[in-house]
């Protein structure tokens, strides 16, 4: 069974640009979670989508947004990129009735 997949693996952008990151959950999982892991800060919760709707949001500005598609895959958009947005962005998925999050390999975003 395929795990959570994310694309691209690496993404290099410059300040002010927009970045789009993609996540495909494990088959049958309806919930997708996005986390940011910046150097020295640990994993910070960004967004949670379930059944196509945003269910919860972490302490991040509105320029971090996303959506979940009918096939439960998800997209994270970061507008007006800033240097401090450089981080590993991780996606996790779970069953609706389960709590465990299985993580993808992450997308390394570098903002120059």
């Amino acid at each position, binding site marked *: 069974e395929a795990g*959570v997949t994310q694309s691209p693996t690496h993404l290099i952008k410059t300040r002010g640009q927009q970045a789009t990151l993609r996540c495909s959950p494990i088959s049958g999982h309806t*919930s997708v*979670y996005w*986390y940011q892991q910046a150097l020295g*800060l*640990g*994993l*910070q*919760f960004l967004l*949670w989508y*379930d059944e196509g709707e945003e*269910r*919860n949001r*972490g302490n991040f500005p509105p320029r971090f947004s996303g959506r979940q598609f009918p096939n439960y895959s998800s997209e994270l958009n970061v507008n007006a990129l800033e240097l401090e947005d450089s981080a*590993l962005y*991780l996606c*996790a998925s*779970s069953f*609706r*009735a*389960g*709590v*465990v*999050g*299985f*993580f*993808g*390999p*992450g997308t*390394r975003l570098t903002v120059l």
Partner: protein
Amino acid sequence: EDQVTQSPEALRLQEGESSSLNCSYTVSGLRGLFWYRQDPGKGPEFLFTLYSAGEEKEKERLKATLTKKESFLHITAPKPEDSATYLCAVVPLTDLNSGGSNYKLTFGKGTLLTVNP
């Protein structure tokens, strides 16, 4: 606010030297506590979920235990391949909007374990 504190920040062991990692937490009510292993540049790999005080789970050289305030990850006779960052996370009971059992994880900053041969 939910808080998770892991100690030590870094731990260096010799191969075969057993030790424990600590995760202390503050939540209004605990739905579950999770342990993950993370290798550099990769996503966290799920290890264990613990739900109630007194619960224990084992996997190979790892054993996780839970009390009302903290969890321990015991590593018995570690090998160099156990070197990684070990992350602890909690899910609180306070998320009333989910309508189900899916909640966000609050993570500690992790313990970087290095096992020397």
